[in-house]
């Protein structure tokens, strides 16, 4: 059977008109309508806000009566345009694809540091000299290759002594703990206050074959210090969270989690927040070893 084709019908309108246009379109297109907004940023730190004209689009399946369907849709939009002025719709034919698979083409292996390679499970490692960490992009954790994660992984590679115990506070997808174990870490404790994170960490650990040696727990600094897990301190502690949370965790005793002489890697810190975080760690008796940067983000390495 020939591949199916779809005709995309698209109109860019003001936000107020979007609902009316979507409603007219929904009568003719198959499966539903999409309304997409662009985003503007107030400044470099801003998360972004939906802004500007919106694109309303839908798809007609290419069949023998396509032209008839298309005409009906154009006419209905014309009538709507008599009430409120509308731009002309634009059309383009797209091939049917394996949509489930096509989003995967966006992903390529990402080399990190000297020895690591992050890649989704469906991609074969292209570089056998690098240690592969397989993380599938997910709803909550994205690709796992945010600059702060990359900075942190490079620091694990540099400071981890094989066999060392590791703590990962705020483990998210578990990527840092998995990288640590793959680089030779001993018993590793990964904690997060979010159930979705602990679940994802377990799944990713299984996918990477590092379930043994990884202890996953729900909690944070307070729970570790209260003795809820097998480790109360470790020679290498990672915290890839945001700067304000790192500062709060120092109040809870983050500084006590590192064994004397051990290393603390702090990441998730914006350039302009670095001084405050470093000052706080130094006030806890830490010595600054180095700060690495990628874009606006930094990671700070300290010794207790």
């Amino acid at each position, binding site marked *: 059977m020939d591949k199916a084709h779809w005709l995309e019908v698209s109109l860019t309108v003001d936000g107020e008109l979007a609902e*009316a246009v*979507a*409603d007219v379109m*929904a009568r003719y*297109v198959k499966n539903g309508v999409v309304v997409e907004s662009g*985003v503007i940023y107030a400044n470099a730190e801003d998360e*972004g806000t939906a802004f500007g004209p919106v694109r309303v689009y839908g798809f007609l399946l290419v069949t023998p009566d396509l032209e008839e369907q298309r005409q009906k849709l154009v006419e209905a939009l014309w009538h709507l345009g008599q009430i409120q002025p509308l731009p002309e719709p634009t059309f383009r034919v797209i091939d049917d694809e394996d949509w*489930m698979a096509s989003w995967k083409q966006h992903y390529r292996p990402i080399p990190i540091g000297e020895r690591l390679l992050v890649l989704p499970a469906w991609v074969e490692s292209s570089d056998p000299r690098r240690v592969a960490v397989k993380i599938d992009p997910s709803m909550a954790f994205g690709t796992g290759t945010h600059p702060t994660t990359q900075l942190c992984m490079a620091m694990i590679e540099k400071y981890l002594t094989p066999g060392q115990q590791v703590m990962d506070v705020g483990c998210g997808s578990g990527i840092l703990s998995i990288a640590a174990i793959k680089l030779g870490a001993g018993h590793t404790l990964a904690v997060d206050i979010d159930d979705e994170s602990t679940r994802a960490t377990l799944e990713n650990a299984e996918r990477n074959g590092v379930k043994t040696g990884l202890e996953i727990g729900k909690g944070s600094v307070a729970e570790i210090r209260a003795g809820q897990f097998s480790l109360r301190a470790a020679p290498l502690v990672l915290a890839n969270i*945001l700067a304000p949370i790192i500062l709060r965790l120092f109040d809870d005793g983050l500084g006590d989690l590192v064994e004397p002489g051990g290393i603390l890697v702090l990441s998730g810190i914006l350039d302009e927040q670095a001084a405050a975080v470093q000052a706080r760690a130094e006030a806890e008796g830490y010595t600054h070893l180095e700060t690495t940067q990628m874009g606006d983000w930094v990671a700070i390495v300290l010794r207790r």
Partner: protein
Amino acid sequence: MAKKLKAIVRLQLPGGKATPAPPVGPALAGHGINIMAFVKEYNARTANRAGEIVPAEITVFTDGSFNFILKSPPAGFLLKRAAGVDKGSATSNRTKVGKVTRAQIREIAELKMKDLNAVDLEGAMRQIEGTARSLGLQVVD
């Protein structure tokens, strides 16, 4: 991690029946987000709303992660239900297919208030009335 918005994509889909076929596939594949993850989650959350159009507002972040919230049904769906008609007029500026009362408009505006860019209920009602007219529904007192 701190996230930056990439786009906001609103999909108006049949509750419990989303598939990776257009429009979901092309709308999401372009942003590199996991279509399977969305479809499963959407159908699970809307399984009890079969027969309704349930909009999902997806927030896509630059790191490839996303989240979504379900919205109230589109105004058009609620208006047609209020007027007791199956579909709007194809020639809405000429042919009227039904009527809705101002009280019904107010009720729908109240329900949709949080999803509309309206500053007050009056503004929301004007938007709903506009949609009613675009469907060929007459607004009566």
